[in-house]
């Protein structure tokens, strides 16, 4: 079960997401030429308070679904890893749907802080050429899952 502050999400097995991501990453042979750049930097994910975490994970997962996964899909199709990718993407859809329902009446300051962190990530993404940005962002799903793991309880 995930507990992002007030937001609880039951029904997702984090180990299953790791397995799905590794299957895809191994097959896609991610060519990330900008190894000095990191989108999910410390300023984005470090010292995130519980109350911020729900907003931040919601914004990040929505971005991954709407932008990264959607436009990265051709590479997924080429690598024949659709089942694993589908597991990852559909569990992100499930998490977002659960977060959305429990975010009502949140404290604005937390929302603003989380928003500023997310915009740091988005700005870094937009500064890269689109294919490079997609490749880097997809490759950083492990950083995202590691951070989400801090809010996960068996």
């Amino acid at each position: 079960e995930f507990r992002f502050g007030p937001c609880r999400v039951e029904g997702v097995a984090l180990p299953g997401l790791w397995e799905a991501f590794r299957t895809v990453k191994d097959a896609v042979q991610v060519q990330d030429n900008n190894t000095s750049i990191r989108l999910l930097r410390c300023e984005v994910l470090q010292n995130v308070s519980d109350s911020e975490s729900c907003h931040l994970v919601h914004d990040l997962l929505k971005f991954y679904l709407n932008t990264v996964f959607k436009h990265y899909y051709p590479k997924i199709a080429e690598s024949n890893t659709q089942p694993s990718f589908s597991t990852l993407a559909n569990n992100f859809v499930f998490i977002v749907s659960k977060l959305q329902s429990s975010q009502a009446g949140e404290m604005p300051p937390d929302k603003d802080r989380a928003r500023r962190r997310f915009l740091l990530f988005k700005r870094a993404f937009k500064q890269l050429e689109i294919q490079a940005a997609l490749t880097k962002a997809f490759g950083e799903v492990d950083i995202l899952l590691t951070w989400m793991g801090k809010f996960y309880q068996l």
Partner: protein
Amino acid sequence: DGGEALPAPQNLSVHSANMKHLLMWSPVVLPRETVYYSVEYQGEYESLYTSHIWIPSKWCSPIEDAECDVSDDITATVPYNLRVRAILGSQTSAWSILEQPFNRNSTILTPPGMEVSRNGFHLVIELEDLGPQFEFLVVYWRRELDTKEHAKVLRRGGIPVHLETMEPGAPYCVKAQAQVKAIGRNSAFSQAECVEVQGEALPL
């Protein structure tokens, strides 16, 4: 071959129990021919973001039976679209799509099978192995003396587990419930089963 189109499978439905999901349909019957089928799925992600994308089922692309175990394809608690078509040689029928998307949270959960036994003075239970998504809540008590119930959560079935060291002279009873965190639901409790250690009850 009169050049007629191969008929599409009809009457698609999903029968799901204990997180085992079976897509079934009416077979396409052609005299002296073996018809195969191909099954594909798309989760909510695919239908929202890449609706033209369908993924071949892990075990049924192709398959000869008029049913397909899609349990390994359904890996999130979101609605899934499922479709099947018939294949005969180089001919393929139109796709038939399941009328209502299927969500695994609708699976039927039955009380787990269990075997309660005693090994000397030890109360032992072995639960049905229903797979990795299942945990079990086991409740046990000593009848008559007190009705204080004890509970234990078992992370898996298929192995004997020691519950309690029994005292002679009173039956011990056990019941169990299956729990699936992936869908946040439990089964009903099983019927209670009791065992007793023969001999005099120890003086209090």
